[in-house]
């Protein structure tokens, strides 16, 4: 196993001349202790336009600095994750997840580690890296995709949404970063013509380019669609969404019945708040550092871990939500968590996740089968 870890690091250092942080060195995302390696600057792409300038993506591409300045956002009610006691209860008996997966062990120790290293580890994990991915056989595929035509309405929609993605971060308002997002999204639309573009996918593109070069981010998205189940969340009539609402509702009903009754008696359905959770895998509801840690786990455990995260959030905030009415619950589930500083401690969320995961996953499978069976029944009628 040690050999494997060494191998991962060797691969990373070969792919990218990035500083390697040992698993035990915690590095702050907001102010990296180590200077970001100075890489040859790549030509600046002009503002995204429907006729896009194609720049040959290179591995030496400079990844946007993760030093994020936050612009003021409207005030929302500040919430605290339960009382100290309830927090203690929620995290009690939560031994750190003992993973047998070496890459996951690395990530568990990375905390908010250097994002380019994390990006490379994610690529390896998703088997989306160069050399690993069957889909990447043609070296020039990405460049070719950028030259392909996509329908005007899709291109226009992508463009409209660029500045409306992560508006709280100045980083994503830069023309250079937006050009990359545009390229990735239009290439995805060209690669999957039947899927095209769904509002929300921009968050994924934006998030990924803080961690990896543009072309890698594209292939990562391809793998999310192809191998991670996002096809049914982003494509067609979004068939996975109603199913995820059903599963989440059933999970809450069986795991947190008091909260379930509180919400349903106030006519708050899963569909009232959970669409962005699923479509952006929590990105649009959380800060970047928070989301990075969530994604570490979700990518390694599989998409269904999203349900564990949702249940962990419900568990941590159950008491708080039980004292709230319709408006406050919805405001909280939609907005409050996004506010940096008002978010729960992500490690605390992950500790609750590791405690409840086995039970949640068993139930997810059960409710998934139930949903499919009832769908069959409806079809037969």
């Amino acid at each position: 196993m040690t050999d494997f870890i060494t191998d991962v690091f060797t691969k990373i250092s070969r792919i990218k001349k990035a500083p390697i942080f040992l698993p035990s060195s915690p590095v702050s995302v907001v102010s990296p202790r180590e200077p970001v390696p100075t890489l040859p600057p790549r030509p600046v792409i002009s503002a995204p336009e429907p006729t896009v300038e194609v720049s040959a993506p290179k591995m030496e591409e400079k990844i946007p600095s993760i030093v994020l300045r936050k612009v003021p956002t409207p005030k929302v009610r500040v919430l605290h994750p339960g009382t100290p006691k309830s927090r203690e209860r929620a995290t009690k008996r939560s031994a750190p997840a003992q993973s047998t997966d070496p890459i996951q062990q690395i990530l568990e120790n990375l905390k908010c580690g250097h994002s380019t290293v994390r990006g490379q580890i994610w690529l390896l994990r998703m088997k989306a890296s160069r050399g690993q991915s069957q889909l990447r056989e043609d070296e020039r595929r990405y460049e070719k995709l950028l030259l392909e035509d996509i329908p005007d309405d899709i291109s226009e929609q992508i463009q409209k949404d660029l500045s409306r993605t992560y508006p709280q971060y100045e980083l994503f308002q830069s023309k250079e970063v937006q050009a990359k997002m545009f390229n990735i999204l239009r290439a995805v639309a060209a690669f999957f013509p039947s899927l095209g573009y769904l509002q929300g996918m921009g968050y994924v593109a934006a998030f990924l380019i803080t961690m990896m070069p543009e072309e890698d981010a594209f292939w990562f998205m391809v793998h999310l669609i192809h191998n991670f189940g996002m096809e049914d969340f982003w494509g067609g009539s979004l068939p996975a969404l109603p199913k995820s609402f059903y599963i989440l509702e059933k999970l809450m009903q069986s795991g947190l019945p008091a909260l379930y009754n509180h919400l349903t008696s106030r006519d708050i359905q899963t569909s009232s708040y959970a669409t962005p959770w699923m479509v952006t895998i929590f990105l649009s509801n959380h800060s970047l550092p928070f989301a990075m840690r969530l994604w570490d786990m979700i990518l390694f455990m599989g998409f269904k871990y999203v349900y564990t995260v949702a249940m962990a959030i419900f568990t941590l905030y159950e008491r708080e939500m039980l004292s709230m009415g319709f408006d406050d619950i919805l405001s909280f589930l939609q907005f409050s968590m996004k506010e940096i500083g008002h978010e729960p401690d992500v490690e605390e969320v992950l500790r609750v996740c590791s405690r409840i995961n086995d039970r949640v996953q068993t139930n997810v499978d059960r409710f998934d089968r139930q949903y499919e069976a009832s769908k069959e029944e409806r079809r037969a009628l």
Partner: protein
Amino acid sequence: MAGQMRKALTYKLVLLGDAGVGKTAIAVQFVKGQFNPFLESTIGASFMNQTVTLPDETLIKFQIWDTAGQERFHSLAPMYYRGAQAAIVVYDITNRNSFEKAKEWIKELQQQGDPNVVVAFVGNKVDMPEARKIQPSEGESYASENGLFFIETSAKTAENVSELFMKIAKQLPSIQRQKDITSGPSNPGVKPGVGAPSKGKGGCCG
């Protein structure tokens, strides 16, 4: 603050229309009195609320469901307009497609929505007269043919935004009284007090 102690009549209102016409901007201008040109694209739907006081002191609380404009989210829309007592269908006066899309929403509401729903047909972005593609008369005549009320707004300058909601509010209680007579108090759509009385610091308008 004193006004909030009284019980408000709560109504569900849904915003519909093509992507980028300014649905969220209208809601944010009404709820927070702000305009931000770079609002997040709405994924699925988002919720806001705001209370208005009618001249007769009646408090009307709007539970506003702001829906995603992209056609691909269309399959979710019924979840939000079902049971809504009011709907605002928005188009962008500088965009012909958005006007056609708004008409489709009106048709869908007429077929699928609550028959008593109060519908406002709204042309937004009047702060851009030089780019105007839809004349007020065109919106006006479509609205009157379909029994809707018509108004042009600017979420940017706030022009007519509170008027829009006040106009809806004025139409609501009378409909509500009619409903109470015909269907009794068990009407599932209306849930006065569902939002729980405000505790003074609640709500998202800070």
